């Protein structure tokens, strides 16, 4: 398929700029000591841009707060970010550029598991710690001992959705529509199916699509015929929105539900009133009354024209705070020592609750269930790990 090559051009230009900068700084002292460089790769444009932007805004807020409070270890954080345009094949290049050209001490990113998986081997090979704010596929941290995440994983989310389907939706028969091109979607479908079937539930139909498809009526007609009690759509919001709208058009009345990939205001715009009575699980609710959460919500709103932060923003914020905490405890930005400090993170209080990194370098924390009612996302319940 035709893929525009602007990012390559941009990164080429960026490389030139860096080289030019080196030339000028050459006669002075080594630049490394002045700041702590942190890199981020994010989907700032393209298919999952809403996620990337939210996460990025949360990340920026955290960096600004830290720098305003005097930085970390007495140094300001220099934040370098690159856009991968939600396309495959860019993230590894960006990770290489951040590590070899910019010499960052740690990498933050990404929302989509598929793209985190592209960058993770680069970070691992160079012994630069990488923290993914919100990639939930288990494979991401399995890449190696330098890869961390501050969110829960799909096995946990799948188990929780299975429990939710059974207990709250009272569903016996569930149909699944998943995205074969997204490891996140396939993983979540699998981690839902296993506990759900083990508890006596039944998966009556499993349909697949390729991310970016627009017409799902053929799959949904098959599902309608299987008359499920509920339909799981473990995809991202652009596809999920169209699926929900087309399911209602075809007369599927069963509730639809999904994972944290749903959480974006665009979902409401694409599917509109068809979303009433659908559910999804996520990491964070701005309605939470915890003072730490409310402090974050207020700061985020003040910086972003009153926009309410979503889960991705909160996780982006936490990814920086967890990193800063580890740098403080390590007392250095040296790769292996920073890695050990990160691995020792325990009950770190953040915007998404207390973060503890387990031996598999995954955060274990509570999840919330949201629903759509009267045209907006509303909090339903919190489910502990």
């Amino acid at each position: 398929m035709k893929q525009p090559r602007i990012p390559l051009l941009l990164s080429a230009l960026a490389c030139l700029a860096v080289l030019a900068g080196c030339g000028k700084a050459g006669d002075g002292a080594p630049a490394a000591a002045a700041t702590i460089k942190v890199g981020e790769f994010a989907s700032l444009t393209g298919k999952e841009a809403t996620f990337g932007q939210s996460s990025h805004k949360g990340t920026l807020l955290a960096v600004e707060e830290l720098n305003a409070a005097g930085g970390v270890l007495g140094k300001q954080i220099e934040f370098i970010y690159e856009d991968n345009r939600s396309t495959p094949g860019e993230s590894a290049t960006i990770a290489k550029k951040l590590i070899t050209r910019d010499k960052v001490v740690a990498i933050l990113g990404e929302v989509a598991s598929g793209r985190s998986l592209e960058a993770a081997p680069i970070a691992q090979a160079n012994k630069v710690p990488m923290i993914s704010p919100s990639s939930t596929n288990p494979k991401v941290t399995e890449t190696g001992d330098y890869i961390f995440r501050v969110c829960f994983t799909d096995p946990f989310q799948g188990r929780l959705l299975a429990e939710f389907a059974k207990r709250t939706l009272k569903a016996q028969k569930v149909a699944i529509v998943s995205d074969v091109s997204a490891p996140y979607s396939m993983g979540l479908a699998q981690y839902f199916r296993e506990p759900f079937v083990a508890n006596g539930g039944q998966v009556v139909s499993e349909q697949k699509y390729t991310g970016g498809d627009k017409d799902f009526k053929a799959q949904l007609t098959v599902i309608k015929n299987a008359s499920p009690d509920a339909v799981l759509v473990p995809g991202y919001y652009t596809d999920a929105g169209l699926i929900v709208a087309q399911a209602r058009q075809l007369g599927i009345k069963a509730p639809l539900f999904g994972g944290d990939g749903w959480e974006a205001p665009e979902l409401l715009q694409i599917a509109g009133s068809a979303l009433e009575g659908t559910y999804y699980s996520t990491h964070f609710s701005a309605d939470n009354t915890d003072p730490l959460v409310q402090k974050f919500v207020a700061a985020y709103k003040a910086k972003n024209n009153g926009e309410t932060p979503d889960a991705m923003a909160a996780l982006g914020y936490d990814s920086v705070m967890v990193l800063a905490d580890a740098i403080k405890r390590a007392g250095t930005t040296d790769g292996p020592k920073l890695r050990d400090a990160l691995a020792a993170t325990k009950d770190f209080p953040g915007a998404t609750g207390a973060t503890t990194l387990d031996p598999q370098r995954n955060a274990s924390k509570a999840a919330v269930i949201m629903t759509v009612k009267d045209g907006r996302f509303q909090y339903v319940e919190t489910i502990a790990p």
Partner: protein
Amino acid sequence: MTELLQQCINGLALGAIYALIALGYTMVYGVLRFINFAHSDVFMVGAFAGYYLARFVPAASVPGGILVLLGAMALCALLGVLIEKFAYRPLRGRSTLTVLITAIGVSLLLQNVGQRVFGANPKSFPALFPLRYYQLDNGLVISSAQIMVFVVTLLLLFALRHIVLHTRIGTAMRALSFNPTAASLVGVNNDRVISFTFALGSALAAAGGILYASNYPSIDPLMGTLPGLKAFVAAVLGGIGNIAGAAVGGIVLGLVETAVVALGGSTYRDAVAFGVLILILLLRPNGLLGKRQAEKV
């Protein structure tokens, strides 16, 4: 049985959209013997024109919707004329390959300018026409948007046939397609006819873009690529250059794709569509309806 019928409706609706886009491909090819790969991106511009024009009319009303549709068609017709004037006209008389590569260049240009101007993020397309669902007594569902695609495709199909077969400009188009030099010798203004052809083809692309976006209300600057390629397959399948063939090809492709997904092969959907292209080129290079002597255009 109900499921089978519903799948047929799904397939027909999808096929009608492919047919609508394929009409534009086939018309330009019929006159100029050249595949305008920028067609799928004019289709995208049409959808975005609809997106912005929709702000000036009342939402979900028939007159407003028609105004937006006509406005977008006019804008894209203008765009088509400009593309022809600046990109293709200077290359007139060069080898087909040169023009073809230029068309791909124009396509990439439109995609990237689109990402710059409209932003790369998907936008949700507003409801232009009132949307209703008709529930038949045996459980079949059909939406007004799907019906509209059929109606508009049929209308444009007949309008196009009429223009090509029964008007002065249509006669000039056919003359040009048979022999450009002879046509200009007998007084046909080739430049004007070619401009008109591009205007017409691009207006069709705009109509396709708006109807596509009404059915699948998430639009982005790269949205044209896949439907454009599928419509190209449809045009070749029906016999490129043949107007009725484009319609038949679109419908067949829509039905085949839906059947593949319904039988559980959703991951092979695109592979099957392009497999059809390879098969048709091997077995029947002139397409289903294209005969060597058939009236092209």
